[in-house]
C-alpha cells in the first residue's frame, strides 16, 4: 500500500443542534469503512437500549457518560478516518450553548470547515455565527453542505435559494474558498457516493472535495519564522561543542547557508545545518520540527526567534487583538494576565477594550461593562517584554496568543493579532 503520499487534512464541523452533524460524521466514517464491527455492535445495542428503531450513528461520537445520558455533545472530540489519498482529523465540536469556545478550539488548527445548513430551515442565526467564527479564525476553506435534501424532495430551487442567501451573507466574511454541496447525511446522498436523486447537481461529492481541496498553500511559506523551543547541548564526548536550536518552523522555508537574524538580540549568522535526529536536510519548511545549528556561537534561548536576515516580524510590546473569551471570569480594563505567544510567555496588561462584536449582526457594541464568556472583543494589550508578531491574517501561528489567568492558571481567551498596538 502506498502511504508515502497521503496528506493530512484537519477539518471541523459546524451547524445547529439538529442539523445532523453527528449523522454526517457517522456517515463519513461508515461509508469510508472506518467503523469497526465491535463499535457498530455497541452502537446498535445502545440504540436498542434507548428504544430507537434505527441505529443512531451519533452514538459513535458521543463518548462521555453524561453525553450519552443527555444525548448531547459536551466537548470537542477528535475522530479519524482515511482514504488512500488523505488522512482526516475531524474536530467534532458541539453546537450547543458554549458554541464560540468550542468552535474556536476546533477551528484553530483546521484547514477546512464544513458548515451544515438544514434545507428546510435555510440560514439560521447559528449558521451566521459559525460562519463568522470560521472567517475570524481564517479557516482557509469552507464547504457549505445543504443537508436533509431528502426532506425537501431534492428540490433544486430550495438549494439554489440557500446558495444565494449564503453568498450574499458571506460577502461580509473573509473566507476565500467556499463550495456548496446538496446532501442527505441520513440517506448518504453526495456524501461519499454521488446521488441519483439530484441529477441537476453537477458538482462533486463531499468526500471528493475533502480529498482534493488544495491545502499545501494554507501555511505561510514566504516569511521565515523559527521560534526556538529549546537549546540542545549534549554532554557527550562525541558532541562536546554541539549547540542545536530545536523548534518547529512556523513559517517560510529555511536552507543551510541562509543568512539569519536572531530576535530580540538582532545578531546575525548563517545556518550551518538543519537536521532531525542526525539526518541533515537541505531545506525545511513549516510545519516541520527540526534542529538548527549556526556558524556563529550566539546567545540564543527558548522564546527567541530565528528569522531571515531581511524579513522580520514586528517586535513590539503593544498588540491589538481580537479575542474570544472562554472563561466564566469576565474581563475588565486594566486586568493583569499572562500572555502566551509562540514559545514565549510573559505578563500583560489589558489596556483598552475597544469594542465587542455582536456576532449575529457583526456590528460593534461599545456600551458594555466587561467581556463575558463567549464574547468576541477587540483589545489592546501591553506586554512586559517584546513579542515577535505577525498579523493573524498573514500567519496563524505567529499571529495568535492565548490569555491565561494569573491565579487559576486557566486559559481565559484566544487572541488573534490584528496589528501591533
Amino acid at each position: 500500500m502506498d502511504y508515502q503520499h497521503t496528506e493530512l487534512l484537519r477539518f471541523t464541523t459546524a451547524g445547529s443542534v439538529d442539523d445532523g452533524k453527528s449523522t454526517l460524521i457517522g456517515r463519513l466514517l461508515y461509508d469510508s469503512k472506518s467503523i469497526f464491527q465491535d463499535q457498530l455492535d455497541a452502537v446498535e445495542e445502545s440504540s436498542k437500549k434507548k428504544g430507537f428503531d434505527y441505529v443512531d450513528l451519533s452514538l459513535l461520537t458521543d463518548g462521555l457518560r453524561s453525553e450519552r445520558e443527555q444525548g448531547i455533545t459536551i466537548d470537542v472530540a477528535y475522530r479519524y478516518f482515511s482514504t488512500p489519498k488523505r488522512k482526516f482529523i475531524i474536530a467534532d465540536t458541539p453546537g450547543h450553548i458554549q458554541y464560540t469556545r468550542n468552535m474556536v478550539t476546533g477551528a484553530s488548527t483546521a484547514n477546512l470547515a464544513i458548515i451544515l445548513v438544514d434545507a428546510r430551515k435555510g440560514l439560521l442565526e447559528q449558521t451566521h455565527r459559525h460562519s463568522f467564527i470560521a472567517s475570524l479564525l481564517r479557516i482557509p476553506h469552507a464547504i457549505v453542505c445543504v443537508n436533509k435534501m431528502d426532506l425537501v424532495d431534492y428540490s433544486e430551487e430550495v438549494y439554489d435559494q440557500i446558495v444565494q442567501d449564503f453568498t450574499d451573507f458571506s460577502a461580509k466574511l473573509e473566507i476565500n474558498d467556499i463550495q456548496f454541496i446538496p446532501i442527505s447525511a441520513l440517506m448518504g446522498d453526495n456524501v461519499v457516493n454521488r446521488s441519483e436523486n439530484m441529477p441537476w447537481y453537477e458538482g462533486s461529492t463531499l468526500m471528493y472535495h475533502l480529498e482534493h481541496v488544495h491545502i499545501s498553500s494554507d501555511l505561510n511559506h514566504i516569511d521565515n519564522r523559527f521560534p526556538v523551543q529549546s537549546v540542545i547541548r549534549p554532554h557527550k564526548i562525541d558532541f562536546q561543542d554541539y549547540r542545536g536550536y530545536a523548534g518547529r518552523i512556523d513559517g517560510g522555508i529555511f536552507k543551510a547557508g541562509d543568512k539569519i537574524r536572531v530576535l530580540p538580540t538582532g545578531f546575525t549568522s548563517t545556518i550551518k545545518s538543519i537536521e532531525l535526529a542526525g539526518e541533515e536536510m537541505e531545506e525545511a519548511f513549516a510545519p516541520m520540527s527540526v534542529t538548527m545549528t549556526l556558524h556563529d556561537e550566539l546567545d540564543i534561548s527558548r522564546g527567541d526567534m530565528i528569522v531571515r536576515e531581511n524579513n522580520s516580524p514586528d517586535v513590539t510590546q503593544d498588540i491589538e487583538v481580537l479575542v474570544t473569551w472562554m472563561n466564566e471570569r469576565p474581563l475588565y480594563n486594566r486586568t493583569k494576565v499572562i500572555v502566551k505567544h509562540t514559545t514565549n510567555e510573559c505578563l500583560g496588561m489589558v489596556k483598552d477594550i475597544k469594542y465587542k462584536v455582536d456576532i449575529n449582526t457583526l456590528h460593534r457594541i461599545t456600551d458594555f461593562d466587561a467581556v463575558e464568556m463567549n464574547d468576541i472583543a477587540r483589545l489592546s494589550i501591553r506586554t512586559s517584554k517584546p513579542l515577535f508578531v505577525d498579523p493573524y491574517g498573514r500567519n496563524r501561528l505567529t499571529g495568535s496568543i492565548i490569555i491565561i489567568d494569573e491565579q487559576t492558571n486557566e486559559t481565559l481567551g484566544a487572541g488573534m493579532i490584528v496589528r501591533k498596538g
Partner: protein
Amino acid sequence: MTNYVMNHLQELESEAIFVIREVAAQFERPALLFSGGKDSILLTHLAKKAFYPARIPFPLIHIDTGHNFPETIEFRDNLVKELGVELVVGSVQEAIDKGRVREETGVNASRNSLQIVSLLDTLEERKVDAAMGGARRDEEKARAKERFFSHRDEFGQWDPKNQRPELWNLFNARKHNGEHFRVFPISNWTEMDVWQYIEMEGIKLPSLYFSHQRECFIRDGVILANSEFVTLKDDEELQVMTVRYRTCGDMPITGAVESDADTVAKIIEEVAATRTTERGGRADDKRGETAMEDRKKAGYF
C-alpha cells in the same frame, strides 16, 4: 516550483516531537510512561529523535503489575540500556504486599485498575509534574475527548467537563503545587499510522507483536495466553495456536488474534482488513460502557 508538502506520517511526527519538546521545556520533572507496548515504544523513539544528539532528558516509568509478558520485560531492559536513559519501576506487587491495594479475586481477576495506586504513588514519590503517555484518541471513545495537555487535580483525577481549551500550538502548562499533567503526544495517531511509521522508521518491537505459536485458551470469545496468572475454568482447555498481539497489556487480560503475519508489512495488510478495534480484545474495557472513562477519572493513564 517545488510543492512544500509533508505526508501525514511526517506531519504527525513533527507534531509529536513539538509536543515532547514543549513538555521538556515547560515542566520541571517530566517522565515518560513506558508499558512496553508498541505505542510507548513509538513514543520513546520520537523522544529520542526530539533531543538527538543529547539523551532523552527524562526517565521512563514502568508500572509493573507483575503480570507482564516476559518478552516485554526483556525488551524494556534492552531498550533502556541502548538509550542510556533512567528506568523507574513502580511495582503493583509491592503495593499489594504493603496493603495499599487489595487484589481482585475470582477467575476474571485483573490487576489493571490496581495500577492506578502504584502509578499515582510513583508520580508523587518522584515529584513528576508531567507524565507523558502513548494513548491515542482513536483507541476508545473517552480517549477521543482527551487534550494533548491534560490537567489532573491534586488527587490525580481527570475532569472531562473542565478541560482547558487547546488552541493552535499553544499549550498551557501552568498549574498549582501538587497538580500534574498527563501529556499525550501521539493523540492524533491511529493504529494504522503507528504501524506505518514503525515500518518507515524500522522501529524494533517485542516478538509478541509478530505471529508465533503459543499455548492459549478461549474465554468469552477472547484468546488468552496460558500463564501462571490464570486459573482455567472447567470447560476451558489449552491448545497451541498461531497468534500475535495487537496491543500488549497484562497477560491475563490481553487478547491475542490468530494471525500468520510475521512482518510489519504483513501486519499493515492485516490491520487494513480487520473489522474489530484494537481494544476489542481488552477484557477490562468490556466491564461497562464507560469503563475507560471511569478509570481515567480515578487517575488511570
